[in-house]
């Protein structure tokens, strides 16, 4: 069981991984063979095999992002199941970007299977949108908010700040040519790094407003219940409690920016003293370290 000193505990569900972490393959002697009942259900319900990192149906297997989205969901849910199974406690559930689906399942607003199907279905809609009008995203580290806004305004075409992850950590989203120019300008103006993320769609930018109807239609088929834990979303920690409000969030969050810094600040103001990342990576843990060096933040891991 995870021990913490003082304050409340927030479980943090991260967004899409950029790759499957090596240690998962290495620990199991090659392949991503991580024994857990969730993986069998992923094969039955979504036709996805984590050990081979392949979808059963060839037409679903073409997209790296779709596979990474489903993988991220599965690994977050496995971490959560491990934590819960060992008697771990929590007061809040929060999420970053595509981490919302696992967060909803963990908060019992949806079942594991529903969360999985939603992750895959929205992933497919995003993939189609990316094929129709290609875009992308890039993480920029080192510059401040004003400079990021200036760069977006100066670059020709459509470029937006998609994530505010910290006072000097941002993600830009937009059309490919604008994004490349934005990265170039960021480095020229002193960013310590600018790197492309795997996304082929301009997620969390107004360019994705065009898929709102498709997403809305898709999620109509799902039963969403009120979360059993306080669910603080990536819109500055706003609480999601009403199923209808959650539906609207699931549509709108795809074309609106993530304010992770605001979310963490809000949870800190609610006396959270321990943040636990649910997944194999430590990206959110490191961002929390930047936002507040004194608060306890750790990644729980999946193995």
């Amino acid at each position, binding site marked *: 069981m995870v021990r913490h000193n003082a304050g409340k505990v927030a479980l943090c569900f991260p967004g899409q991984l950029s790759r499957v972490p090596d240690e998962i393959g290495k620990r199991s002697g090659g392949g991503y063979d991580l024994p857990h009942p969730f993986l069998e259900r992923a094969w039955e319900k979504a036709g996805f095999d984590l050990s081979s990192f392949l979808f059963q149906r060839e037409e679903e297997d073409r997209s790296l992002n779709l596979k990474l989205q489903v993988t991220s969901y599965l690994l977050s849910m496995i971490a959560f199941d491990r934590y819960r199974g060992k008697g771990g406690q929590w007061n809040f559930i929060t999420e970053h970007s595509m981490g919302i689906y696992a967060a909803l399942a963990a908060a019992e607003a949806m079942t594991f299977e529903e969360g999985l199907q939603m992750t895959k279905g929205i992933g497919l809609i995003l993939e189609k949108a990316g094929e129709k009008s290609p875009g992308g995203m890039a993480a920029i*580290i*080192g510059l401040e908010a004003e400079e990021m806004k200036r760069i977006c305004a100066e670059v020709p075409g459509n470029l937006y700040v998609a994530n505010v992850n910290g006072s000097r*950590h941002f993600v830009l989203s937009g059309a490919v040519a604008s994004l490349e120019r934005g990265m170039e300008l960021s480095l020229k103006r*002193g960013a*310590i790094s*600018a*790197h492309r993320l795997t996304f082929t769609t301009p997620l969390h930018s107004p360019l994705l407003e065009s898929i709102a109807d498709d997403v809305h239609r898709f999620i109509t088929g799902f039963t969403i219940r009120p979360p059993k834990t306080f669910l603080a979303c990536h819109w500055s920690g706003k609480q999601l409690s009403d199923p209808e409000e959650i539906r609207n969030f699931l549509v709108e969050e795809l074309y609106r920016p993530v304010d992770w810094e605001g979310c963490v600040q809000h949870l800190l103001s609610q006396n959270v003293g321990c943040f636990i990342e649910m997944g194999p990576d430590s990206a959110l843990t*490191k961002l929390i370290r*930047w936002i507040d*060096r004194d608060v306890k933040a750790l990644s729980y891991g999946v193995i």
Partner: protein
Amino acid sequence: MTGVTEELITEVKKLIIERLKLEEITVADIITDAPLFGEGLGLDSIDALELVIGLEKEYGVNIPDAEVGKKVFQSVRTIAQYIVDNHGKEVAVANGAS
């Protein structure tokens, strides 16, 4: 490479552990010439910004851009060399930070 002392190497390792809150790692675990990013300690660009701020605070040395950062953050030794080359140690001593 000149002017890099073992004492400075140890200080840089301590700075990395402290800034990145690497609670399970000791000075002895960090190999002076091993890569810091990707392999080795497996640091990433979020960690790099922490180190940039740490070097500014502790030694008064500035990493102006990504190009310089790539060269400086190759290993503990290249960080120590950058501090020496930019007279960072003297700044730290003058400020009473060392």
